[in-house]
Structure formats: structure tokens, C-alpha cells
């Protein structure tokens, strides 16, 4: 784990399942990240991104109102340097490619290992 005190680690967690937000939040807070906001769909995520300007976003794909792919596109329009990591049970190659094309930095397939989540976020923040 990179300790880097200068490294900002403010995270916005986006997932429609409260249970999954709780799990991600738990992993992140144990590993030196600060969860500054939680969103239950893509539309709320875009709104919170504007308000909170987080350093990184974890984004589910299948969500009501606005899905994760549409939300990544909208966030990239607000901030072209936004760092978004997709976090979805849908690991089909076509879906991963669609997310990367939309502007996501990485793709984590659920169920995930704690180390994989931390590693993906550290890497994206450092880049």
C-alpha cells in the first residue's frame, strides 16, 4: 500500500446496492481512503461529482435511472481528467471495452478481492 500523505484519496462510491456501498466503504476506509460521498445511481453520481469533486470514483454499471456507462460519459464531460474505476458483476469483454471507451481507467469484476480494489485505486490515483 502506498502511504503517500500528499496523495489525495477522496472517493465517491457509486452502487445501487446499499450492501455493496457498505462493503466498498469498509475496504476503502481500512486502507487509508476517505469516502466523501455515496450515490445509488448514475444521475446522483454526476450531481455529487460536481458538488464534491472527488479524486476518484468507483462506479457500478447496472443501476436504475442512469447506468454506470452513461454516468462515466457525463462525468468525463464535466471533468476530462476524472478518474473512474468500474466495479461491476458484468465482466463480459464487450462490456469492459464499452466502459474503457467511455473513459473508465480500470475495471474490477465482482466479487472482488480487497487487494484488487485497493491496488486499482492506488494505481489510478498515482497516474
Amino acid at each position: 500500500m502506498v502511504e503517500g500523505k500528499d496523495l489525495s484519496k477522496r472517493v465517491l462510491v457509486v452502487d445501487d446496492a446499499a450492501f455493496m456501498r457498505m462493503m466498498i466503504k469498509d475496504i476503502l476506509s481500512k486502507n487509508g481512503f476517505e469516502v466523501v460521498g455515496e450515490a445509488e445511481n448514475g444521475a446522483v453520481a454526476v450531481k455529487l461529482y460536481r458538488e464534491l469533486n472527488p479524486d476518484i470514483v468507483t462506479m457500478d454499471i447496472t443501476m436504475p435511472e442512469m447506468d454506470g456507462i452513461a454516468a462515466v460519459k457525463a462525468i468525463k464531460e464535466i471533468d476530462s481528467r476524472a478518474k473512474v474505476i468500474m466495479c461491476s458483476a458484468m465482466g463480459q469483454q464487450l462490456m469492459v471495452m464499452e466502459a474503457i471507451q467511455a473513459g473508465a481507467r480500470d475495471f474490477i469484476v465482482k466479487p472482488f478481492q480487497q487487494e484488487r480494489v485497493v491496488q486499482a485505486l492506488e494505481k489510478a490515483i498515482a497516474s
Partner: protein
Amino acid sequence: MKDPDHLTNLHLDAFQEIGNIGAGNAATALAQMLQCKITMQVPKVELIPLGGLAGAIGQEEELVSCITTLVDGGAPASVLFLLGAQSTYLLTDLLLGRKPGSTTELDNMGQSALLEIGNILTGSFLNALGEATGIMFKPSVPYLAFDMLASVISSALLEGGYYDEQVLVMRTQMIGSEILIQGHFLLIPYSGTLPVILKAIGLNL
């Protein structure tokens, strides 16, 4: 378009193999989430009259939870993950880190945990199916019902698309080694979907 009555043993074998890959992936996902060994029965692939689906799976009045995902994309279908009441409560305890036996009814966080596990298992199943067939499967946001078996199955079918009178059902049971969790996994293709999947694996109906 021919109906599923024309399916041969070769077709059923092919579906069984696809089901095997999909369910294997889903069982691995469940084992990873629960940190225990999960065994899986070889999936059964059967043609079942639509009206007799609940009776073919278990007792119609049995209390179950059912997580339904409608799947859009190249091969539309419904995916149902069914758990008996006791398995539902135990799974909720394990997912939320509660002492086994503490859940006796589903609260909001319990429902969310079950929905998410349904989402992950269906996702893992579809990921394998997508790899095997090259078809893109797009799942909807899943929903949870906790009611009698016959009732949850009829509502799930009503939510979905059009089915043939005889539906091809792929189902498997997952059983935890140290804990007793039994679940059924059902893939119910919509009318017209079977030929698409068969064509993708080089067979014709």
C-alpha cells in the same frame, strides 16, 4: 422459427455444457463471497410446460426468495435465483457478518445484500455465457420477491417477455460444504432466443 419441441439430445447437451460453465462461474463467485467451498450439481436442462414450472422445482407453497434479472441484448431471457427461506436467512447472516441464526425476517440491508448477491451470481453466469457464445447479455437491475414459490415464479414470468409454451429451463443447485445453503438457478429464454444461442455455438434448430 421452430419451437423448442424440435430440440434434439445434441441441443440439450450443448445447453447443459453452457449451463455448466455459467453455473460453475456463479458457484465460484458465491464461494469467494462466503469464503467457503460451494459444490454444484451438474445443471439439468429440461423442457418444462410454462404452467408447471413451480411444481417441477419444489413445493408450490414453500416460502422462498427469488431474485429476478431480466436479460436484454442478443439473447433475451429471464434469470431467476431461488433460495428457500432458511437458506435466505442464513445467507443474509453470512453476508452481513451476523451470527448464523440471527436473521428471522428480511430488513432493508438484508434485502440489499441478497439483491447484490443475486446480481453478482447472475453476472458471473452471464459472463461465462457471453464468453462461450460471443453474445452480449445485458442484465436489468434485479428485483427481490419473498413469497410462496408458485407466486414468485408467476410474477417473475409476468415481468419478462414472451415465452414458448414449453420453456427450456436450465437449473442447478449450489450447496455449501460447511453451511447448508441450497439455491436454484434458472435461465428461462424468451421465445426466439433458443435458435440465437444455438446458432452462436454452431448448431441449428
